[in-house]
């Protein structure tokens, strides 16, 4: 433990973190229509965790460990890669969303769904990676 931050900072951060995460979800899902997208939403998710790390210290590490961040980053990359590669097994090109094996949607709707899955994958990868970067910079001296 380096130094315990003040009660004011901890209270306000604990109040704000859920709202930041909610806005991150909005940024991810709303990326088609306006400002936002996978990278921005993932960065916002990472900001919420990093704020909690700064103000809560080791308690935050118990709630959301570095291992979980690694799993999330790898899962996001895996999701992106799968959406890219799976259409190739169904006779389409790499990242061709119309080749996705979701047979109950067609055409534009399928492309839309594919972009949404890609955005979620990017968001998870960015989220996990940024939290990992912060954890490696901060070291083990909690």
């Amino acid at each position, binding site marked *: 433990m380096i130094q315990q*931050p003040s009660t004011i*900072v901890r209270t*306000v*951060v604990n109040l*704000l973190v859920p709202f930041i995460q909610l806005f991150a979800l909005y940024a991810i899902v709303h990326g088609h229509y306006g400002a936002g997208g996978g990278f921005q939403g993932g960065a916002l998710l990472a900001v919420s965790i990093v704020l909690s790390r700064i103000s809560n210290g080791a308690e935050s590490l118990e709630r959301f460990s570095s291992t979980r961040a690694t799993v999330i980053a790898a899962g996001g990359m895996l999701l992106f890669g799968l959406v890219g590669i799976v259409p190739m097994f169904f006779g389409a090109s790499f990242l061709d969303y119309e080749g996705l094996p979701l047979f109950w949607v067609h055409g534009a709707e399928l492309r839309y769904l594919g972009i949404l899955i890609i955005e979620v994958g990017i968001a998870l990868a960015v989220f996990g990676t940024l939290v990992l970067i912060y954890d490696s910079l901060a070291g083990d001296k909690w």
Partner: protein
Amino acid sequence: MAVNSVVIALVVSGVFFMAVSAIAMLRFPDFYTRSHAMGKADTLGLVLLMAGLGIYSWELSSLKLLFVMVFIMIANPTATHAIVKAALKSGLPIWTRKEAGSDGREGI
């Protein structure tokens, strides 16, 4: 017309408070007094400006501006508090009134 008057009053007072905090940044002697000016005058100036803009274009973005205003009113003073507390803990010396001329500066 009445709406425009309200908007003008809000934006002008917001710009006034922003200008006051900018002058304070230049005129105040050390980090603590400057943060004191930024934490209060800047928050109020930004909130007044955004209130004026939200009333001027009265639509869905007004609600979003309201959320941003609430966020700024919570987050800006907290950030100032955290930075000032960190400076105090790391031992930044606090400015005190000196005799006129002892450091080549007029006594403020």
